[in-house]
């Protein structure tokens, strides 16, 4: 066991009795099991196929103590709010901040609350999802061992929650880690949209290790947005695991803009027939940023449809990894799966590794995939310049247009506008592109 792992285990021993739900035997056992598995397996290495292109040295070398949330540090979150999203749960260094949050009335028996609150008052609601680890992996184990809070969103049978629920995670403490754990449960026929949004106050590095579990009942619809805007010194590791029952739909959007090192594992499994999923993603990195998306669509049952649209823009010495794993089980006949990953390299020193991984064990299926890595199109640049646009303007315009095709898929207007503005603000020619948003 290396020193970092020992320190995490020691910290767990010291903190275990103080963690939320410590008095719940099933949860204590789950945490105990998780820290033991973590201690045994340690952090993934480059020899691990799923981590082949993402070195974890920067995370492994440091010990990040648990952030001790001081809710008073954050008095204002206005800059990050989405104006057409009335429900918001705000978390400061991983802990729920009621004074900054506002949850309007949801139709009973639906609920959106802090997970720590739910563990204190009605733990049986969370138990089915926390008792068993949703996925293997060191970071999920670490999260299970240390999770202190997060959002618990449950939507009752047949209830349609029209307005999105905004989960805002603000990190304020340099050198510390938080392990947000979110549960989103949509009962049969329910519909809900959740925005999971990570931001920072201050410029010091920190570590976010988030896990979000999503359960979509029969015919349910869950739309999940993950907006990663950590500061550029942060490490962000996040796992989104969805389980879908028959006829359900899960739409995922991952917008990865910040962090020095970001890894997003997004996985869904079709546990019933006729499920649908669309995974959208946009990563925009520069400097020495590193972003890794690892998506898995598990077509375990027949007649499932999946679509995947990922785009990346890389500048300077940035690096990106995209792995799109699609597994079609033997009896998952009539599966229809399509995956596309396009990458735009704005610099010679940027690097991208993109790999589709299709494992198909059924014979009556439709599966397609495509990946491109390229630069701005010379014909387009020339055309724009013959219309009087300066080269820099033309380049930024085409770069923006490349991202716009993913941004157009964002259905929450304020989030789309906000992301479009963010994209424009990153450009040298921001002033000239303002009219686009």
């Amino acid at each position, binding site marked *: 066991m290396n020193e970092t792992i020992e320190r995490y285990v020691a910290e767990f021993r010291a903190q275990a009795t103080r963690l939320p739900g410590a008095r719940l035997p099933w949860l204590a056992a789950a945490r105990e099991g998780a820290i033991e598995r973590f201690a045994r397996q340690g952090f993934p290495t480059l020899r691990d196929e799923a981590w082949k292109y993402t070195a974890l040295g920067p995370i492994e070398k440091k010990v990040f103590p648990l952030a001790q949330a001081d809710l008073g540090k954050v008095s204002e979150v206005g800059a990050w709010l989405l104006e057409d999203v009335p429900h918001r749960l705000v978390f400061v260094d991983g802990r729920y901040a009621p004074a900054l949050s506002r949850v309007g009335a949801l139709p009973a028996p639906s609920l959106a609350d802090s997970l720590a609150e739910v563990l204190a008052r009605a733990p049986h609601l969370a138990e089915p999802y926390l008792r068993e680890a949703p996925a293997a992996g060191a970071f999920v184990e670490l999260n299970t061992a240390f999770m202190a809070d997060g959002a618990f969103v449950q939507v009752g049978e047949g209830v349609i929650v029209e307005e999105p629920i905004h989960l805002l995670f603000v990190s304020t403490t340099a050198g510390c880690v938080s392990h947000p754990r979110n549960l989103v449960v949509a009962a049969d026929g329910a519909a809900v949209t959740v925005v999971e949004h990570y931001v920072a106050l201050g410029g010091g590095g920190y570590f976010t290790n988030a896990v979000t579990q999503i359960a979509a009942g029969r015919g349910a619809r869950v739309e999940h947005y993950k907006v990663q805007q950590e500061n550029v010194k942060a490490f962000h590791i996040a796992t989104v695991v969805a389980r879908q029952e028959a006829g359900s739909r899960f739409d995922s959007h991952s917008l990865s803009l910040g962090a020095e090192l970001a890894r997003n594992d997004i996985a869904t499994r079709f546990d019933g027939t006729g499920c649908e999923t669309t995974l959208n993603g946009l990563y925009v990195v520069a400097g020495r940023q590193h972003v890794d998306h690892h998506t898995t669509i598990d077509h375990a049952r027949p007649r499932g449809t999946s679509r995947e649209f990922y785009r990346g823009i890389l500048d300077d010495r940035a690096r990106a990894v995209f792995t799109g794993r699609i597994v079609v089980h033997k009896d998952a006949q009539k599966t229809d799966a399509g995956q596309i990953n396009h990458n735009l390299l704005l610099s010679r020193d940027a690097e991208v590794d993109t790999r589709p991984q299709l494992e198909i064990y059924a014979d009556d299926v439709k599966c397609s995939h495509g990946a491109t890595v390229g630069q701005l199109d010379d*014909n387009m640049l020339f*055309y*724009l*310049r013959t219309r*009087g*646009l300066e080269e820099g303007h033309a380049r930024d*315009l085409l770069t923006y247009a490349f991202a716009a*095709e993913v941004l157009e898929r964002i259905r929450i207007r304020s989030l789309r506008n906000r992301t479009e503005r963010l994209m424009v603000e990153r450009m040298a020619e921001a002033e000239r592109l303002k009219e686009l948003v």
Partner: protein
Amino acid sequence: MSLLTIKNLQAAVDGKQILRGIDLDVQPGEVHAIMGPNGSGKSTLAQVLAGREDYQAVSGEVLYQGKDLLALSTEERAREGIFLAFQYPVEIPGVSNVYLLKAAVNAIRKHRGQPELDAVEFLQLVKARMKSMKMGEEFLYRSVNEGFSGGEKKRNEVLQMALLEPRLAILDETDSGLDIDALKIVAEGVNSLRSPERAMIVITHYQRLLEYIVPDYVHVLSRGRIVKSGGRELALELEEKGYAWIEGGKAGAAAGAVR
């Protein structure tokens, strides 16, 4: 003063010489047609004049309004009043037509010392122009040329030309891919822009376009050189006798008539 003077222009693409000594003089108000078979260098000439970077002038001189045109960047040429209507207008997904049109108009107005147009002024201007080109307003909000039919693309080129009010318009195979109705609309658009200050170079393979856009001069390009110049009757003669007449050798007796 001549608007454009080309002297012994030689140009290469990917190290392969295409233009082998072009001489041309264009006065304000004139319309020059450049005809020639495939591969004669017509489009290369258009691209070199517009400033395409991978088309390199090897030698010769191009003076535009008395200035060295080849020393200007693509966008500087556009701002100085050169407009190229593309043979294959480029599709640009994600960039709306209205954004490009307004950015282009204002880039050029700014260069000319005119105040930039705000959104309202611009929309008034563009909608009036679109009406005359028989283009619906939905074109404004579609991505540039994306999914446009051949005719729609060419109309969009002429719309841009109308808005940018160039001094020198170069129309590269504007008739290609057009049915007769679309051709008439495009030609009307072009003709409405003819003026004593503005010159045009109309590049075409076929005589047909010149029935609608009547040139003052016709030049025949062959293997990178202008081999024959004349009035518009030259186009009719070419139509009748075919390019073999100009290219010589293979054309037998007819070739003798040229020399």
